[in-house]
């Protein structure tokens, strides 16, 4: 089995702050890899480094056996990967079809191929009826779906998805999950970050958990199941406990007093007698 993603001592510092700290990743081809971590743990920074958008302070990265920070090899990598970046990188003043056409042309796809794939992708993402709407008029979920469609358009060997299910409705989410599962089953690789344990648990074959920039767990879900451990319990066990963390609100300890008492010193609310 070949290796799709490999990092050694991957580190990124922003000033004094270490966002990613000596991460050693190894993702085999044909793997559905879930990259988990609390907010600010370094997931997006790692994905940026893996896709060549951010240079590491130290360490090495290999994507499909190539170096994303070598100018010549970077283009070859970009031809073979699809990315849903954190900020989505859409153009506000394009329609969905125009954006897909643009991406297809940048990947040097044939016109007919672009058209056929765009039709299918737009139908799959339920965006086919929005042909006159500009991206700026889309909801966040629709934008996510369009970015995902654009990432899948060139039929890449490796997909990087930064929070792909965030803001996506349940129906579309199911369709996307099925599509991604099919994508992996034919031998491609998916590397996704997500907060939704249930999605990761259902889709992924392997998971990595990052906390405070450090990769604290890298395992297959198969092993977790053998140990009778759910992903959520494993995740909470590793990163869920914080010393001195506030776990409840002081004013919620007491039963709420009557509305009259509560409103005693409050303002009268919206004026009713105002002209």
């Amino acid at each position, binding site marked *: 089995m070949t290796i799709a993603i490999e990092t050694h001592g991957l580190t990124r510092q922003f000033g004094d702050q270490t966002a990613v700290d000596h991460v050693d990743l190894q993702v085999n081809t044909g793997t559905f890899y879930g990259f988990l971590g609390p907010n600010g743990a370094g997931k997006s920074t790692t994905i940026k480094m893996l896709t060549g958008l951010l240079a590491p302070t130290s360490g090495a990265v290999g994507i499909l056996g190539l170096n994303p920070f070598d*100018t010549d090899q970077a283009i070859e990598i*970009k031809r073979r990967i699809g990315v849903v*970046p954190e900020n989505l990188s859409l153009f506000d003043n394009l329609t969905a079809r125009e954006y897909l056409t643009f991406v297809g042309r*940048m990947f040097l796809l044939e016109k007919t191929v672009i058209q056929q794939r765009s039709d299918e992708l737009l139908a799959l993402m339920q965006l086919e009826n929005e042909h006159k709407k*500009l991206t700026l008029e889309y909801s966040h979920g629709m934008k996510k779906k369009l970015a995902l469609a654009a990432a899948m358009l060139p039929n890449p060997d490796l997909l990087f998805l930064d929070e792909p299910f965030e803001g996506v409705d349940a129906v579309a989410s199911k369709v996307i999950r099925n599509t991604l599962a099919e994508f992996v089953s034919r031998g491609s690789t998916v590397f996704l970050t997500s907060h939704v344990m249930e999605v990761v648990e259902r889709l992924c074959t392997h998971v990595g958990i990052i906390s405070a920039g450090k990769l604290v767990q890298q395992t297959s879900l198969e092993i977790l199941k053998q140990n009778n451990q759910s992903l959520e319990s494993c995740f909470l066990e590793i990163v869920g406990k914080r010393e001195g963390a506030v776990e409840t609100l002081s004013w919620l300890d007491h039963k709420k007093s009557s509305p009259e008492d509560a409103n005693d010193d409050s303002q009268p609310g919206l004026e009713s007698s*105002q002209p």
Partner: protein
Amino acid sequence: MNLTHLRTITWLRWRIIANQFRKIGRGHQILSIFLVVVGFLAAITMGVSGFAMPLPILEKAPLSIYLLIWAGLSMVYFTAWAIGVLTDLQQKEPLTLDKFLHLPISPTNAFINNFLSSFLSFSTVLIFPALLGFAGRMVAMFGMRMAPIFLLLFAFFLMIMALTYQFRGWLGALMLNKRRRRAILSFATIMFVIVVQIPNMINMAYQSSTSTNLEELAETDSSPVLEELRASQEEFDKWLNQFSNGKPPSDELDRRLEELTRLTDRLPVNLTATELDLDSASPTDPRQQRLNSQIIQLAEYVRLACCIIPFGWLAIGIEYMVVGQGIHTVLIPSLCFVGMLGISFFSLRRAYKSTLRLYRGEVAFNDNSTKAKQTPGSSRPTWINRLSEKKFPLLNEQQSAVTGMTLISLLRAPEAKMVLLSPLLVILLIGGSFAFRNAENIPVSLRVFGGLGAISFTMLGIMNLTNNQFGYDRQGFRCLLLSPVKRVDILIGKNAAYAPFAFAIGAIGLGLMQCFIPMPIDNFLATLVQLGTIFLITCLMGNLMSIKAPLAISSGTMRPTNINLSVATIHILLTLLLPICLLPTLIPPGIDLLVNRFIGSTYVPIDLLLSLALLIVTLVVYRFIVARQAGLLRDRESIILEAVTHIGS
């Protein structure tokens, strides 16, 4: 270079423009088409008129006139270029590299695509034909020895494009941080206003040095002065002709020019063209001579500036080509050409290196390194933070909360500060012109009106913000609507937040006027009181505009994202109505003036007392009207919310 990528990105630009055009209102579409057609026709006209410029006007002038013309053209081009860059930077959707980096595009392609895009700018399309046309005219006039002018133009054009590219890239990289972006946009705009005003200030200073007392001149008998002037000019011509290279000793030239100017200044203004014999091309024509001497004098300053600023090297090169004598004719234009090419080369090299750094991810687009460092000491609240807790005098708790929130937003938004300060800048410039131009000639009794005009003008800056108070809240307006606050408190709280700015800027503006055109102290104090009246009226007008014609504003700019004809009409009409609403403020100084004129000095500060009375009346009227405006706000709040949170094209 991959041509498919180049074609694709060109297509992308076209689609974005076409879609933006499709989404704007019909009125805006017609206006855009009109502007494009006018721009196109203007470009052709400028090109043709540049070539067909009637040169007999220039024939009487010294050769330095070409330096001035080309320096002027370069300045116009620079101004148009700077406007283009500022507009570009304010665009909501710049085609920055971060949109392409995850796609398979090579760094060379990314660089070339971005560079080529900088060629198509307003300044290039509109101004460059005029430069080409005039260059062609000069070749036709001076012969083929002027042909290298096109090389100089090419180098100038390339230099501007390369610098634009580098400058935009640099600013673009800096502006990735949103807070810094707003500060840069504001700073760049203010700097632009100041820079383009420099020639105006120089002109005013220059004019003041040659200004004359018109009344004295009108009474002067012209004939002896004219005789003396003609004699001096003949002598000056003879002396000047001794220097075949056109470079007389500067000390002696200055002395003679000063003498000549002094004599010319003594000429009465009512001297006719016949008396001056302007129709003849005689070298003894005194006005022509005076003009020529002024051109030579001005050219000295401009030449110095052109030598220092690379934008002026085109003018310097052309001037030396026109002189057409000696080695300098070749050497200086060549140096200018090489210099401009060198700058182009180094700018492009730097820009390419930056592109490579971005491509390799050595510079992060989402620059986390610029985030504030969370050190233990830095969590202490600043005075701006404390504004959110402050209870302001005369305001209730909820009004204070709204005032605090609005004040914090204003203090943190550089674009708002820019808008507030711009009228002050204009007053400074106008005040400067008064300072240069014998302000003491303005009658004392009328100066109070100048003061009122100055503070009314500063209020325009305040009105730029008050006329769309909810638009600047953007999504924050939803929070105001959801809060259990009386709508009248929202309006009063918001109005109160502008008060410190209005009083500070108004007082500074009035102080400046007092320095340039001093008025009696009671009038000065009365005008300060009037500041309150004018502010309250401005707030009422602003409230009405904010409620009736709200506009969505792009974050980090002051540009409305989508403006339709009816909203624009309301804004224009209400802005025009403001001076009419401010007319009552003329009553106190008007009565004061009439009493002094017809009864004589009463030793009673009539203006001050009446201004205080007017302020009290305005306060009562304000309280009455703002309550009605609150009702209007309540009725329209959902419409306003929809308008200010709408993300238009």
